């Protein structure tokens, strides 16, 4: 998903929530900078109740509470790293939508690349082996003549 897409989705969810009169989703700050950072951070954090929604998109109670935490900490002047750290120290890396790059997640990050590379190698080997077979057995004169006839569209008589 592109960044714009995500932002549009978050904005849509927010608009819906506001329309529905949900508590907490209504931006309470007059400060648009705080509000923008709140949404940005909330879009990176997973709601642990619904698991497949960010806390920006979810209307679960816990998501509302966590969004309030984010908003308060942003307003208190905490950095993004401090707020993310607050969340991961309580809920673990699972709370992050984008898993951090470290030893245990190397396979997660590079596994698909590895599989792609293996596939490419296999494909290369197969192509090479076929080329070798083709080069090792060139056509005889008779076969060549027959191929040329077929290409001219003369067909074969049976």
């Amino acid at each position, binding site marked *: 998903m592109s960044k714009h897409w995500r932002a549009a989705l978050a904005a849509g969810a927010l608009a819906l929530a506001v329309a529905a009169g949900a508590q907490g989703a209504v931006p309470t700050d007059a400060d648009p900078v705080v509000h923008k950072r709140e949404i940005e951070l909330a879009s990176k954090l997973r709601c*642990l*109740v619904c*698991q497949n929604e960010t806390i920006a998109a979810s209307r679960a*109670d*816990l998501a509302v*509470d*966590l969004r309030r*935490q984010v908003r308060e900490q942003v307003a208190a002047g905490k950095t993004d790293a401090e707020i993310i750290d607050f969340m*991961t*120290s*309580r*809920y*673990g*890396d*699972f709370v992050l939508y984008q898993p951090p790059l470290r030893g245990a997640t190397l396979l997660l990050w590079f596994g698909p690349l590895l599989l792609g590379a293996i596939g490419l190698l296999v494909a290369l080997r197969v192509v090479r082996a076929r080329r070798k077979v083709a080069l090792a057995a060139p056509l005889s004169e008779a076969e060549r003549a027959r191929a040329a006839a077929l290409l001219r569209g003369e067909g074969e008589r049976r």
Partner: protein
Amino acid sequence: MKRIALFLIPLAAFAVLAVFLLRGLWLNPREVPSPLIGKPAPVFVRPTLHAPDKQFASADMAGQVWVFNVWASWCTPCRQEHPLWNAFARKQLVPLIGLNYKDKGDAARGWLAELGDPYQVNVVDADGRVGIDFGVYGVPETFVIDKKGVIRLKHIGPITAEALDRKIVPLIQQLQGES
């Protein structure tokens, strides 16, 4: 030889995949491992449920092993696990402290009057902030905290007789032996 390899490689790949998927069948995606295990329990001071003018401080529990159970009257699985806590409290093994999470006082007190009150103290967490500090995301949740105030176990979801007998009670006995 080559033909055998062509046959065996996909078979092996399938077997590996099957083992992973089979394991996945028995994993509960709702159980997110807590980073708080082995860390000092969050410190809090909150009013108690039965005497709102009195405060409970988690620091007062230092030096003893205790069980911390997060519950609410609106939580259906809490009703399911409640008889087990009643039985657990009768054993008088360790103090059972309740965290009444995002609940209404009257509803919570009524719930305990109806179903029995196994808790030594119930702490009121009206806005859910203590819950967030403990990484609570699905009530009920249960923590075992040792004499030094370190979280040693977290159980997510309703407690079961099996979890109590096999994990929690043996752990409590082990922790009581520690200095």
